[in-house]
C-alpha cells in the first residue's frame, strides 16, 4: 500500500523556528506562550523545538512576539517569514 502523501495536506508541513541563542537572555516568555515548544533547562539554557507542526502556529506566534530581546524567527509555509 502506498504511503499517504503527507505533502498533500498543507498544514502538515512544519514551521521552521530559529532562536538566536547568543541574543537569548532566558526571560522565558516563550516558555509561557508555547510551553510545548520552548523550555528552560537548568537555570537559563533555552531548549526549543525547531520544527513544530503548523497546528502550533498560534502558540509559536505568541512566543515570537513576546520575546523581550526578539531572538525568535519563524518561517511559516503559509505566512512567510516572521
Amino acid at each position, binding site marked *: 500500500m502506498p504511503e499517504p502523501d503527507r505533502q498533500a495536506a498543507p498544514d502538515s508541513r512544519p514551521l*521552521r523556528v530559529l532562536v538566536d541563542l*547568543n541574543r537569548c537572555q532566558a526571560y522565558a516568555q516563550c516558555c509561557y506562550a508555547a510551553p510545548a515548544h520552548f523550555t528552560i*533547562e*537548568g537555570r537559563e539554557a533555552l531548549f526549543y523545538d525547531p520544527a513544530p507542526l503548523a497546528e502550533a502556529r498560534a502558540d509559536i506566534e505568541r512566543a515570537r512576539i513576546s520575546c523581550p530581546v526578539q531572538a525568535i524567527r519563524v518561517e511559516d509555509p503559509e505566512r512567510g517569514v516572521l
Partner: protein
Amino acid sequence: MVAERAVVVGAGLAGLRGAEALRRAGFTGSLTLVGAEAHRPYDRPPLSKHVLTGAVAADATTLPSFLPLEAEWRLGTAVTGLDRRNGRVRLADGSSLAFDRLLIATGTRARAWPNPHEGRLAGVHSIRSREDATALRTALAAGPRRVLVIGGGFIGCEMASACRTLGIPVTLVEPSTAPLARVLGTHMGDVIGALHTARGVEMRCGTEVEWLEDDGRGRVVRAHLSGGDRIEADLVVVALGAVRNTEWLAGSGLSADAGGLDCDADGYALDTEGRVDARVAAAGDVARFPHPLYDGRRVALEHWSHAVAQAEHAGRLLADRKACSHYAAVPTFWSTQHGINIKSVGLTEGADGLVIAQGSPKEGRFLAVYGREGRCIAALSVDCARWLPAYAAQVAARAPFPPIHGAIDQPEHRPVLPPGFS
C-alpha cells in the same frame, strides 16, 4: 547589459545567509548555491546536543529561509576547483559554473582520527554532519557500556554532557590539564571541568589516547592511553576539532591553506601576492581575516553568529561593491553542557589577566572577564547571561581592564588571576 551570475559555494549557515544578503542588497542576476551535502542548509548546534539525546530529530534542523532566494540549488555536489582566469568553479560531477561574483563558504569538516584503520572501526564516530549525528544517536540509543570522548573542546564537552543526560558512563580524554583550556585557559577550564566531574563525567586530562584496539571483528573495544592505562569503551567519539575545506582552492592562485582562505579587512579574497580579487568574497569558518578589534590579527572563527554576520557582510559586499566597510563584528558563541548555559564574547587569545566580575564560580553562576595589556578582550558567562551585554560593550570598546566598578552582585574583591594560557 549582460545579466550577472552569482555562485555561492557551500550550502550551510553562511552560504544561506550570504545568498539572502545578496538578494536583500538588490542583486537581481542568477544565483546558484552549491553544497557537498545532499541537504538544504541546516543548523549544526543541535547535532551535538539535543539530536544526540533524541529530543530533536536530525532532519528537524533545516534552517528557515528569511526571504525567497529564487536560486538554483546544486546539492550533493562537491566543488573541486576554481578557475579564476575564466571565472568558473568546477564541480565533482564534471560540470562547471560560470560566475561574476563568488561567495566561498565551504566551511570545515571534522578532523579525523590520525590512524585511518582505527578510525574506520565500528563504534568510532565523529560529529559534524546530520548523518554523523544520526549514526551517533542510534549508537547511543543502543546503550553502550561506556563512551570515550577524545578531545575536551566544546564539541567533546557537549558530547560528554549528552551521555550523562542519557545516563551513559562516559570518559573524556584531553591532552592539556583542563577541558576547553585552549579557548578559555586552564583557570576557567578547571572550573568547567569540575562541573563535568560533579555530573558524573570521568575526566582524564593531561593524557592522550595512543591507539584504539578492536575485538578482532572490526569493532572498537578499548583505548590505550599514553601512560599505559586502558579505557574499556565500546563507543568512541573523536572530537579533535575541525579542518578547513580549502583543498579545492589549490591552483586557484588564492592564498589558502589548512588555516583558511585569506581575506582582506573588507572580506574580499586575497591571492598569493596579497592582491584583492573583487569578484570573490568568503565567509564563515573558512574565511581568515584581520580582525580590527584585535589589532588586525588574522583569525578564522568557527562560531555560529560569525557565520551569519560575516556572510551578511559578504553578501552585501558582492551585491554592491562600493557599499563595503570593514567587517568588525565582535565574536560571540554559546554552548550548553549539563543544562549549564556557557556564553562568550570576544577572543581570549593572548589574555594576561582574568577577573571574576560577577557572581562566583563556587555557586556555579558567574561572569569572568579576560584582559590583555590593561584592556578588556573577552568575557565568559556561566549561567549569568543577563550580565553579558554590559561586559560585551566593554569588550567592544576595548575598555580598561578590569571593567565596571561598583555594580551590584559583584564580588567584594576582584583579584586579577592568571588565565592559564601556555
